[in-house]
């Protein structure tokens, strides 16, 4: 099922899980468990990921071509069970679009409140 023709706009707003996962791989590829830890830490446990929720989301993001499997980066080929994921161009675009949406919302609020 190709979703090239689905507009990025139709993916908005991103769910918190998807957003945080994209954030986690923004700086470079990570493996699943590391993404999980990063997301749980950054959201103070509010987006509590477990194996099912994490990999379910990863599966969906792979389907939507926001994420793709990648080779482990240099020097980290420790555990064969670790699979690494990286953001796709589409994923980057989605993250930027969502950030833009949040920014305009925040700006509106600041305008009215201040």
């Amino acid at each position: 099922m190709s979703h090239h023709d689905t507009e990025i706009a139709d993916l908005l707003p991103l769910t918190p899980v998807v957003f945080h996962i994209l954030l986690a791989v923004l700086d470079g590829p990570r493996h699943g468990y590391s993404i999980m830890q990063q997301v749980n830490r950054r959201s103070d446990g509010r987006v509590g990921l477990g194996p099912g929720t994490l990999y379910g989301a990863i599966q969906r993001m792979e389907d939507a071509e926001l994420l793709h499997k990648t080779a482990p980066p240099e020097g980290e080929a420790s555990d064969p069970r670790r699979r690494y994921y990286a953001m796709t161009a589409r994923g980057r675009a989605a993250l930027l679009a969502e950030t833009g949406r949040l920014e305009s919302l925040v700006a509106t609020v600041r305008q009215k409140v201040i």
Partner: protein
Amino acid sequence: MGGRAVLMVYRAVSWLYPARVRRSHGEEMAAAVEWEWQRRGEQGVRGVVAFAVWLVVDVARSIVTHRLMPAAQRVRRWWRPHTSERMSYRRRRELVQTTLRDLRHAVRALSRKPAFTATAALTLALGIGANTAVFSVVDRVLLRPLPYPESGSLVRVAHPVPGYGSGEWGLSQGGYFYFKRHSRLLGDLGVYTSPSVLLTGDERAERVGAAAISASVLSTLQVAPVLGRGITADDDVPGAPPVVLLSHDLWVRRFGGDEAIIGRTILMSGRPREVIGVMPPGFHFPRQSTALWFPLRLNPNARPVNSHYFSAVGRMADGADVSDVGGELRSLVARFPQDMPTAYSAQFFDESGFDVVVRTVLDDAVGNASRALWIVLGTVGLVLLMACANVANLFLVRAEGRRREVALRTALGADRMDLLRHSLAESAALAVLGGMLGVGLAYLGVDALTAMAPEGLPRIHELGIDLRAVGVAALVTGVAALFFGTVPLLQRGERDLTEHLKEGTRTTTSGKQRQRIRSTLVVSQIGIALVLLAGSGLLLRSFLSLQAIDLGFEPQNVLTARLTVLPTKYEDAAAANRFFQSVQASLESREIVSSVGMTLQLEIADRAYDNATQLTDRPDGGETMQIIDQKFAGPGYFETMGVRLLEGRYMERADLEEEVPGAIVTRALAERYWPGESAIGKRLRPMFRQFPWHRVVGVIDDVRTEGIQLEPKPTVYFPYTDSRSTTMAVVVRSEAPLSAILSTVQREVWALDPDVPIAEVQSMERIVADDMARTVFTMSLLSLAAAMALLLGAVGIYGVVSYSVTQRAPEIGIRLALGARGGQVRAMVLGQTMRLALIGIGIGLVAALALNRVMNALLFGVQSTDPTTFAVACVILASVAMLAGFLPARRAARVDPLEALRV
């Protein structure tokens, strides 16, 4: 450590995760669980718990996200095959806009087809309006509680006396005090009578309804006055100073709503009473007309006598229910002969079957009417169903006609959801229109219902459309809209659009399916119509039977009125009697008056005194004392009422003054107490106040004193001069119109005494009619519903047959072209009509036979399975069906074969 154990745990729950994710990422998930365990394990017990929670929560969320939500999305995808998976907020906004647009389109489309819109809206309005109106009545009368606190625990107590007939007696004074002393399950008990009294004084004399109550009546009802104080136990003892409570209406109307009324004295029936309080507005116990309450001042130590004329109202103790209280009172009544032998002999108990019955006040007030009302509600519900079926039919026709438009739309990208939205928008607009019209009709209907309703239905005077009824109407409207908005879409997806897009295709599979649905709807309509027709037919026959009953007197052309004399102007009973006799004499001299008489109790309107009567000159030579209905009347009364004389003569003036005055008895009395002999010359006397013996001078045929539907009881008529009453009813027979008689009566009465109020002027016919009011009410409503059902059914049949003719035009054209005659084509169409009608009638018969058991309580003189009624109903329905099919049949015969065969 324990890694393998954790792996086993993981494997145990992993099957709960979605299969696809497990396939792609199973190893990673297992690894994640293991690493998390390692991490948490270092945190001791708390870590273990945290790990467990983490895993369980994740499994739960996973199930929700991956199994439940996709299922919901699958449903959504069925409606919208062309869209992507998630509904973003942009889509949601679009949805609102499109809905509004659909509504606008719907309104425009409906206004383009005024005939369709008007028919559908009016049909709906009929059904919804009838339902709202009837629901208002049922709600007020049956569903709302009475205006007393915790009215559910209020009960009435009465004494059935099956040995003496079907009536019920009130309580006796002795019985009342006995229950009060000994009952534990009755928290409170009060007794009362409802005389009418004369108010005189500063203003014009006025007769008002009053109630003589024990102080416990107010405490039982738990109603307190809004001004002043209520009647206390101190006011209710013999010799206490006379006091009175006013109703709110009376206080405002006659005393100007002046608060200074408290402590003032008013004249009630000529005697002064101090006003001690005013009751709250809306308090009308026991009758709507009650305006004054004063204490009975009964003596608890008085010797009990077998005289029962108190009505009783009680409140059950907490936790007791009606059957408990009934059982307790029954066991108390069983001790009456032992504890009150002077009043209740064992022989009396045997003969009368003296018993006690306890009923909730609501049951008592509404009685038979409740069943009638529920039946009526069911009836209009059926009519509404028929109306919806008709409208659904209309929609089906419309859908059929718009097949191509729908096919085009679908081909251009509309999905099922869009089509449904369009259809629902139209049906919603129609339903709202019909609903508004319906509520308007209901307003009119409620007015009519109130006018027709029998007296005595609680709260009937408070009728109006209330919010609940409108809410019900709205609900019904909504459901109706959903119903016939979706019925046309009730078929499988139309995959092959090309079939519809082709020109000239008239019959498709879905068309046939629609036609089947329509036929089913019409057949069920016919069935419902039969049920209603049969029901109203049965009621009509009951009504006719009631009308044909021999009352024992002739109510036509008789005017009645009540006259009351001021006790202060007439020193004693003799003076009052002289006045009444003068009135009669002066009326007799008028030409316009055919005959005149006086009576204490009007037939049907008033109850007889069922009191102890002593009879002698029995066949076995002895005396006996019996409880017999006693009435008081005078010379001229029997002739005026048109009562039939069987033996002896009517009462005469001389009978009033003899040493052994004359009395008239009914046939039932003569046959029961002097069987096989002539009753003339036998003696009897009432057992109170040292009455003299009376001699029977005449025997009249039985009179239905108590009511049309009750068997006549043995009755004796004593001269009214015995009764020492200051109120007497005058009956006047005349051919002249009511107003002429009334002004004659007024002239003669006021010429003799201008202070005598003339009250409750009614024709005897009116009194008789009121007695039948309940039956007439139900019957009228049911007949109205049957008429509506008949109309709707006819329209339904017409629609189906007419449409079928249009569909079959090519076939008919071929037949005609091949030489069939017009008459044969007509016969074919009519045959189809009859087939539909007969199936419907068959279904209706079965349903009617089952349901009419419900109606049994309302019927009189006819069985609920009466074959004649059913036969007539079937014939009427069949004829109407034929008539409805007539026009389409004619049209079929006129089909032009060339036109029909043109593709």
